[in-house]
């Protein structure tokens, strides 16, 4: 309650704290400028795009889910996605060890291609055709009655039962073992085959390009070039089947367990080149060439989740998020000013600085660790306005408590702070604990929420220590507050203290 002095001179500590804050903000700003980060990286749900979550699955006993296999799958999928040439596509593995999901995010509207492209295991095999039938329904007696030579009754029965009209039969599984005689549908479902063991494998392909047949009606094909081993194997199989009768003079090109095409081999092909034709469109041919070029995935994948957000919905969600944030912030500020009067201005300032730091961190983290702001992240930030403001309330109410004990404002601020500090640290620690655990246990959107929640709670701690407290220390010396002006938030009336110096009991 002393006469107001120039606060800057008398106390060094609040000034030091504020100076640290200034250095911090300027540092962040400079980092953002140096990095050239001018806007926050938005998640796909805010700007439109496709995200696919793939769940690894062991398709047969020989390919177990290992950490290496997942890493390898990530890098192959990354190459495939990059081959589409969409900027800012992302392929990441989330989770830990073998219990990981692969998350692919592609902005814009090329998502449909991505979905088709990435999930293919792309297990390419060349197999001799042993029997072919264009009868699709199961229980076809004609085909069952003419079993191919050297095919077991078991396979013949499977062949008869295979119904290619059923969509589930036409899903590429990649579950076919290379050494088995198998039954398979064609990609279109128009015919079904009995196929011999694989004689040429996808890894024996050294190059794959898409080309267009100039003479025909612009039919797209994929041109394969085999490596030495592949050239020899392909030469062998083609030489052997040319002399056989139809349908056994065909070699089926099998991708993920489905027959892409089964050309009749008219002469041996020792050159080490092969063409896959199959009424492809340009996109299909190019995608298939890319898939073959980058190799087969070591694992099969289930599509855990596919989410496609149109740019319209994206911008709607962004606007809604920002509007909700502005509204929430506005309400909190109005409440603070009404209830705490001039002291509420400290809340306004603190939230403004917290917001500035958060925005700068979004910029910097977007550049440095690829942080993207999602809708759940915005929600986390809005929710944290409440948590941040809670810290101020705890502090302010403590000061009032101390003032009720009959202290001067200046000493009430110091002793109130000593007590409020403990409460704020413990409460914020609980929030941070929640955020960290959510982050590590959850997938997808939940992680975005947890990240912003944790980040904002840390900022809250920082702001309370190096802004709110120092500022309150400084203003407590101002006569306006110290004398309990009706608008200061420390008036006798608003504290509820009857006579400041008289003990209640006396």
């Amino acid at each position: 309650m002393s006469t107001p002095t120039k606060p800057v001179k008398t106390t060094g500590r609040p000034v030091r704290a504020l100076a640290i804050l200034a250095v911090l903000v300027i540092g962040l700003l400079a980092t953002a400028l140096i990095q050239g980060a001018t806007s926050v990286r938005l998640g796909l749900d805010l700007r439109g795009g496709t995200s696919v979550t793939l769940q690894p699955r062991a398709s047969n006993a020989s390919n177990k889910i290992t950490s290496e296999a997942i890493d390898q799958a990530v890098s192959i999928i990354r190459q495939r996605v990059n081959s589409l040439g969409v900027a800012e596509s992302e392929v990441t593995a989330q989770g830990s060890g073998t219990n990981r999901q692969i998350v692919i995010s592609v902005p814009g509207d090329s998502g449909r291609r991505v979905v088709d492209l990435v999930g293919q295991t792309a297990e390419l095999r060349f197999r001799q055709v042993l029997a072919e039938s264009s009868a699709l329904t199961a229980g076809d007696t004609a085909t069952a009655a003419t079993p191919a030579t050297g095919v077991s009754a078991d396979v013949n029965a499977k062949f008869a039962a295979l119904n290619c009209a059923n969509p589930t039969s036409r899903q590429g599984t990649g579950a076919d073992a290379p050494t088995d005689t198998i039954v398979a549908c064609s990609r279109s479902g128009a015919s079904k085959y009995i196929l011999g063991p694989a004689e040429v494998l996808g890894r024996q392909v050294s190059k794959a390009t898409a080309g267009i047949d100039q003479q025909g009606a612009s039919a797209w094909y994929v041109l394969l070039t085999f490596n030495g081993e592949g050239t020899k194997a392909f030469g062998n199989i083609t030489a052997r089947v040319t002399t056989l009768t139809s349908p056994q003079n065909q070699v089926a090109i099998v991708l993920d367990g489905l027959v892409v095409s089964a050309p009749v081999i008219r002469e041996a092909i020792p050159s080490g080149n092969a063409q896959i034709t199959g009424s492809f469109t340009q996109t299909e041919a190019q995608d298939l060439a890319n898939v073959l070029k980058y190799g087969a995935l070591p694992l099969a994948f289930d599509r855990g989740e596919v989410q496609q957000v149109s740019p319209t919905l994206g911008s709607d969600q962004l606007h809604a998020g920002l509007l909700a944030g502005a509204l929430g912030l506005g309400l909190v500020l109005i409440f603070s000013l009404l209830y705490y009067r001039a002291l509420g201005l400290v809340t306004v300032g603190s939230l403004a600085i917290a917001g500035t730091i958060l925005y700068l961190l979004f910029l910097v983290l977007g550049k440095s660790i690829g942080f993207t702001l999602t809708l759940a992240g915005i929600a986390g930030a809005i929710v944290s306005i409440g948590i941040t403001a809670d810290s101020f309330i705890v502090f302010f109410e403590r000061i009032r408590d101390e003032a009720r004990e009959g202290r001067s404002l200046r000493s009430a601020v110091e002793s109130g702070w000593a007590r409020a500090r403990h409460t704020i640290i413990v409460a914020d620690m609980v929030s941070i604990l929640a955020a960290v655990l959510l982050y590590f246990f959850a997938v997808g959107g939940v992680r975005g929420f947890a990240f912003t929640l944790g980040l904002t709670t840390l900022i809250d701690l920082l702001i309370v220590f190096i802004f709110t407290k120092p500022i309150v220390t400084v203003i407590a010396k101002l006569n306006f507050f110290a004398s309990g002006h009706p608008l200061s938030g420390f008036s006798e009336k608003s504290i509820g203290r009857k006579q400041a110096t008289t003990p209640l009991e006396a």
Partner: protein
Amino acid sequence: MAKISGLGGRLYSGETSFNIVENRKRWYSVSALFLLAAIAALVIQGLHLGIEFKGGASYTVNQPTATVAQARTAVQGLGIPGEIIVQKIGTSKVRVQTGAVTPDQSKAIETALTSAFGVTAESIDTQLVGPSWGKEITRKALYGLFAFLLAVMLFLAMAFEPKMAIAAIVAVVHDVLITVGIYALVGFDVTPATVIGFLTILGYSLYDTVVVFDKVRENTKSVAANSKMTYSQAANLAVNQTLVRSANTSLIALLPVASILFVGAGLLGAGTLKDLSLALFIGLAVGTYSSVFIAPPFLAQLREKEPAMQALAKRVAARGGAPVAVESKAVRPSTGSGPRNQPKRKGRK
């Protein structure tokens, strides 16, 4: 506002006091009623899980003239297995939800919708969830929940005292159960965003409880030495002293959540914002109640069982007769203002 502040002062001095800890049976009964209803709703009706948990597909067409009947006709003939739910979302969108579909079926649905409404495939918002995916995220959410409860219990036991940790966790479990029960009862959709909401409630509810318990700890530190108040009375004073604070922090926390709910439900109609904020809104309300009416009385009950606290209760009773009378007289000198007890407070730090 000033009136509330004045109330804060009276509550602080003990001039105005609500017997919150004393009347614990009343609050327990209220909570027991809610918990029973919640469990009954969960068992009988169960939660209305979104497609993220049970697998399925969702297609949202943004076309102001689109009607539910049109969408239903378009999709019906495709032979999609399972129940097809068609809903109007907001004013300009129609959403079609189906069971788990194959990629081919999904394409067929999209084609049907694009031709029915004259929109491009890119403008349809699609979500496909595999049937096993839901189990995966449910498992992860549960792991997260248990890890969180355990970590918080250990942390609070260290920061405060073990019995406070138990009481805080009891309050949190109470909040989540009741919130989930309300979801089962009303039949709101449970989506991953809802689960985020549930998990955040844990943090919020604990924040409030921590504020109250911090004051309880302060008031009860030397309660045994003073012999002026029983543990329950000291805890009750703490609850009263932090009542205004609890009300304020809850209100302030509720304001942003309410605005997300308002914008999310009003402008977008459905989605992350609405699901998240609805869970938070309900949970916050329940959490505020429990941090005042459940956690402190439960803590007091735990502590009163200790021999030292029982002995204290006897001493207090011997000194002042009826506990209620003691409260109004004895409370004031110990925490009321006065230079007399200032050195003592400093010594306690």
